[in-house]
């Protein structure tokens, strides 16, 4: 593929060629991602619909499959209303900041051993940095809207995300200790050797903390206080309309997919098969389910995304101070204790994970 691109663009000067190839790579990553986001909204409406004994969208196209397209078209044609006395520059910057970081984080996400846009050694740090900057989108949007509801939401979001970043960061420290690498590809390779080698087992509390913090980071129910519909209407994006609003929406869903992807990469063995190394399967015609493939990664991420939707259909919303209490008094102590436990496991070289 890449060779073909190089030969096609070989008449261009080298610098231009590089740029074009980078752009093509970005397009190849982002177009499926944005389609994934669009159909995640459809999946959400359908799945939650069935959980709530109703049908969900079924009017646009066969079985409603074109619903996300119709939504996108509708939002694109809507006017972007800028409220009076709002800071116009920041008001328009905020959605850009949200989507920019949400998409940029995907640069270092590997899809299999070779397929990664940028094989950065500090991938984990890069992702932490990107998701943290994304929060500024929410905060700036809340402040720039010149609305009291949005302002409250910005305050809630900043407090919530600061506290959950810490828990999340500590959870990642555990992964770092287990894999001795910040490169996401290496983290996955460190888990190869069958389902018992996945970090899910030794790092189970960290997995739970990471995933719940991820739900909180993406402002999803039951942690959606920043947009808590029944309290502060829609929170930070209450004044946004049209495409500006839908960009926040895209960013939220892109982040959901990102969190699920990362959780599967770091704890569930990424693209590795859970049946790896089982001889009966490897010798049968079902050998393909025992081999690592991108399908496994997507399946694991899809399962975690289902959990996102399931939470939303099941749980009531936390109150803002309860979220803070959960973050500071439960999650952070758990992660700290478990990091200590990992240290001990590392010292005594326990299990298949810490032998080296």
């Amino acid at each position, binding site marked *: 593929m890449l060779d073909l691109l190089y030969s096609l663009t070989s008449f261009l000067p080298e610098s231009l060629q590089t740029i074009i190839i980078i752009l093509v790579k970005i397009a190849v990553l982002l177009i499926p991602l944005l389609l994934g986001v669009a159909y995640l909204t459809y999946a959400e409406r359908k799945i939650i619909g069935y959980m*709530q004994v109703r049908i969900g969208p079924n009017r646009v196209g066969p079985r409603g499959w074109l619903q996300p397209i119709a939504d996108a078209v509708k939002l694109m044609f809507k006017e972007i209303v800028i409220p009076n006395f709002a800071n116009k520059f920041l008001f328009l910057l905020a959605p850009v900041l949200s989507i920019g970081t949400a998409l940029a984080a995907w640069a270092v996400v590997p899809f299999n051993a070779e397929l990664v846009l940028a094989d950065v050694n500090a991938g984990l740090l890069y992702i932490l940095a990107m998701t943290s900057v994304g929060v500024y989108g929410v905060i700036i949007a809340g402040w720039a809207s010149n609305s*009291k509801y949005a302002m409250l939401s910005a305050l809630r979001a900043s407090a919530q995300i600061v506290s959950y970043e810490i828990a999340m960061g500590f959870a990642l420290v555990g992964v770092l200790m287990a894999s001795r690498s910040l490169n996401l590809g290496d983290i996955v390779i460190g888990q190869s050797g069958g389902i018992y080698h996945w970090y899910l087992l030794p790092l189970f509390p960290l997995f739970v903390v990471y995933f719940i913090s991820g739900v909180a980071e993406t402002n999803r129910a039951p942690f959606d206080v920043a947009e*808590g*519909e029944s309290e502060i209407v829609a929170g930070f994006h209450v004044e946004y309309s049209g495409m500006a609003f839908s960009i926040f929406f895209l960013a939220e869903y892109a982040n959901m997919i990102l969190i699920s992807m990362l959780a599967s990469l770091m704890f569930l063995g990424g693209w590795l098969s859970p049946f790896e190394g089982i001889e009966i399967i490897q010798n049968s015609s079902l050998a393909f389910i025992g081999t690592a493939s991108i399908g496994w990664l997507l399946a694991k991420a899809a399962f975690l995304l289902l959990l996102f939707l399931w939470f939303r259909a099941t749980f009531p919303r*936390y109150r803002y*101070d309860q979220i803070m209490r959960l973050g500071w008094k439960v999650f952070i102590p758990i992660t700290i204790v478990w990091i200590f436990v990992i240290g001990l496991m590392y010292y005594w070289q326990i299990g298949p994970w810490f032998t080296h």
Partner: protein
Amino acid sequence: MAEIRNYTMNFGPQHPAAHGVLRLVLELNGEVVQRADPHIGLLHRATEKLAESKPFNQSIGYMDRLDYVSMMCNEHAYVMTIEKLLGITVPVRAQYIRVMFDEITRILNHLMWIGAHGLDIGAMTIFLYAFREREDLMDVYEAVSGARMHATYYRPGGVYRDLPELMPQYQASKWHTQAEVNKLNENRQGSLLDFLDDFTQRFDTYVDEYETLLTENRIWKQRTVDIGIITPERAIALGFTGPMLRGSGVEWDLRKKQPYEVYDKMDFDIPVGVNGDCYDRYLVRMEEMRQSNRIIKQCIRWLRDNPGSVMLEDHKLTPPSREHMKEDMESLIHHFKLFTEGYSVPEGQAYAAVEHPKGEFGTYIISEGANKPYRLKIRAPGFVHLSALHEMVEGHMLADVVAVIGTQDIVFGEVDR
């Protein structure tokens, strides 16, 4: 240094959790509520004044529109007041029908409440579950009165007509094939009572379903336990009634304390709370749904065995049958007089109250002997509860305001009248 002021926020009238048109001016210190000032009147329709210019019967329809989630209970209080002034008692079968529909209405109201309360606190699914059951009860409303909400089914002297022998059925259409429709019609083959009987068999498991979603849910408990506590003494002093009062542990229910219609023949319990917080009121209302179901079962049993008249035979007050009108001059005159001029009510005043799903709902009528009330006063429980909003939310957080509005079960139709 700049002066530090509280953050004043308009909560409503256009707000997803305002339950209609509540405008709440909140003074917040951070997220902590310092003062909550409910502004009412955005749904004022002058029901009391309108009633002064209409014959008695023509105001029954307005009563439906007061608390528009418990329609027939509103009618009941109004109709009972007129009956008290006229000094009439309605046939026993009509009394049973009224009791049955009061309890259906209570379930309807509480289902609406659990849905809205859940949604306010962020539990979406319960809302749609509750509406699934509401649909069946709405069909029952429609079967007896022709209207799904604003029934105007109770009349002075009884109820408009007897329960139908056939439950209306779904028809096949472009969207629903005959097979689908047959499935939907499975429990609609018999009479209305058969359909209701089937519903009462199912309903307890539905309530269990709601409870599995909420009762032991940690988040639900964190959001409702110790929120909006009202002590029994304060609850009485503030004039609370209904589940708001019983949630605080005061055992007061008009159905037991001053039984009207045939409630004294019914076997049911009055659930009371202990702590007077949102969670206790939640539990009280959940149990009330089960108790209402019990009452409906008893009514169904009695109504099956005891056919009879459902309307007083005094045609000065109640319309004659259509057949009589065709051949009997006097019936025709009765009909004409009744639907143009109405009937005159003896001079005097009366107050009658029912145990409405939200509390004590009463109407007070002063009659000067004319065919219209001189004055009608409506005692709406929601108004009393709303006036205690500040006391209930002071010192709580913004998200708790929503929980308290939900637990008060406010409907602006009756608050603003």
